């Protein structure tokens, strides 16, 4: 990080709301339908049609606003943002200008040093998405473009941050925190590849100690959180070089080129942005009552950071564990269910962070899409604790339960995985192995105590992992004594 300059970043995030229908009409808002199959006179802006606001979209936008500590404009309205582009059938986008639903909020992030920092939110408003434009060739030289208006009119919230972000890492932490909150609320799937979460950034540098902001560039077209971090890091360096050379940053829009890993100037707009906003006369204003806000507040789930801190306190977990377990609401739920039935919370955490996350990844599923539940995990941990199975065998059982949902006890029974803790049975096997390996026995007697591991291994192999390792170890020592 530069000592000379301070980085100043503000982010604009668009999140598609997971409603059944579009924001102002009864067309399906589903992703991936056949081109233009979800269109109607309203979302295509045909003359004489009247939009009507989707109740659930309003509710979702208010939930996001309150979860991000926003104040609510109790008198709010929609406005037309006027510009021409073929993905916008009406020639304007219905958005919100001077009275956004939410304003003056904050998102708490954790920095790499483990400290918390608040990023201010200027506003959260509700608006409609545009259609999708497909260019026959490259932009600029193709004779025709094609438009699919399925996405046109799908509800979005735009979340605008204050210029409080001071590094690309903080930008990523902010996006992570924001995404987690949205996922906890269940109002969007935040899938960046499908475009349900999009992010633009304003970046500028200023000499440390300066109060005024430097000239900013806007960066667009970043398609993953990693791309955001990289694009911002590139942009910071680019501006640093310009300033060091005594040159000025040009206020412009730049696009992130993923293949070249650099930001490229989009040919500048000749006209300054001038959207001539005015109140949307086809929609009545919104009056949000105190009772409605209260009801929204009551409907909010415990949010990720609160939950993390509670996990640290209530279950005495390290910050790292609590962070991983609260990544998703489903995972946190599974942890709490398990920890409620098995009293070593750290052990529960270890299994979830280790085996469970590994299996999720391997099977390409999300928490909640597998067959494990809290009761079954607790049962498995009991089986390890009382010596019925070894922790090694437990992994096999865990996987079976994860996939089929069979209770661990049942799996152990069916597969005959019960640990051999019976002394007589094991002593017999041990005697045989000791007799078969006279050289190793000599080594051990000669002081190479580590060689005992080899014999334990042999016992485990013979019993297909079912021997109680501590007992095997003890019996081997006793057996060697006899020789």
């Amino acid at each position, binding site marked *: 990080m530069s000592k000379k300059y301070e980085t100043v970043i503000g982010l604009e995030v668009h999140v598609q709301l997971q409603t059944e229908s579009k924001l102002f009409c009864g067309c399906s808002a589903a992703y991936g339908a056949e081109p233009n199959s979800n269109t109607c006179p309203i979302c295509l802006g045909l003359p004489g049609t009247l939009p009507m606001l989707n109740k659930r979209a309003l509710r979702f936008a208010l939930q996001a606003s309150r979860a991000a500590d926003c104040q609510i404009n109790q008198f709010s309205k929609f406005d037309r943002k006027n510009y021409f582009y073929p993905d916008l059938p009406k020639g304007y986008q219905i958005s919100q200008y001077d009275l956004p639903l939410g304003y003056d909020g904050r998102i708490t992030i954790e920095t790499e040093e483990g400290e918390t920092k608040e990023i201010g939110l200027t506003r959260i408003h509700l608006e409609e998405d545009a259609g999708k434009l497909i260019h026959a060739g490259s932009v600029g030289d193709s004779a025709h473009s094609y438009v699919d208006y399925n996405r046109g009119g799908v509800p979005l919230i735009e979340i605008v941050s204050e210029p409080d972000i001071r590094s690309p890492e903080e930008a990523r932490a902010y996006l992570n925190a924001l995404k987690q909150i949205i996922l906890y609320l269940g109002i969007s799937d935040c899938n960046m590849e499908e475009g349900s979460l999009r992010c633009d950034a304003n970046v500028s540098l200023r000499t440390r100690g300066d109060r005024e902001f430097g000239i900013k560039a806007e960066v667009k077209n970043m398609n993953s959180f990693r791309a955001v971090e990289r694009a911002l890091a590139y942009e910071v360096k680019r501006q640093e070089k310009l300033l060091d050379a005594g040159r000025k940053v040009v206020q412009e829009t730049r696009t992130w080129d993923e293949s070249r890993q650099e930001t490229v100037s989009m040919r500048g707009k000749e*006209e300054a942005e001038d959207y001539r906003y005015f109140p949307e006369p086809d929609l009545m204003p919104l009056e949000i009552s105190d009772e409605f806000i209260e009801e929204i507040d009551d409907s909010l789930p415990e949010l990720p950071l609160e939950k993390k801190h509670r996990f640290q306190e209530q279950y005495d977990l390290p910050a790292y564990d609590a962070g991983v377990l609260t990544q998703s609401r489903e995972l946190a739920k599974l942890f709490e269910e398990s920890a409620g039935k098995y009293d070593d919370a750290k052990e529960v955490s270890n299994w979830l962070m280790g085996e469970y996350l590994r299996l999720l990844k391997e099977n390409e599923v999300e928490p909640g899409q597998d067959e494990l539940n809290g009761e079954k995990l607790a049962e498995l941990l009991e089986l390890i604790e009382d010596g019925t199975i070894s922790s090694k065998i437990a992994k096999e059982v865990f996987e079976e339960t994860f996939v089929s949902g069979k209770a661990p006890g049942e799996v152990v029974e069916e597969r005959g995985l019960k640990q051999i803790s019976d002394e007589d049975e094991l002593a017999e096997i041990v005697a045989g192995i000791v007799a078969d390996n006279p050289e190793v026995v000599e080594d051990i007697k000669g002081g190479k105590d580590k060689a005992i591991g080899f014999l334990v291994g042999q016992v485990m192999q013979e019993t297909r992992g079912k021997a109680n390792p501590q007992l095997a170890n003890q019996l081997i020592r006793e057996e060697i004594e006899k020789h």
Partner: protein
Amino acid sequence: MISREEIAHIAELASLKLTEEEKEEFSEQLSDVLNYINKILEVDTEGVEPTYYPLPSSNILREDEVTNQDRRQEMLEQAPDKEDDQFKVPGIEQKE
């Protein structure tokens, strides 16, 4: 008075091509309209809430339900040009 430059800017935003004579003409006409409307500024509105809508109605909402069928053929017929269920539009030219 609205200058010819402002008229040119507004025309540009509205994607209208105006001749020099038209710019002159509209500059006068729009200035007249604005001057007329500006009379309203003479009214003392101290303490009066802005009126965004003339109708005393608010919170007109619909349930989140899919009520529309696939009407793409009917919709596509409204367009001057189409191809394979897509609306076909002139290529996007970048302004120099």
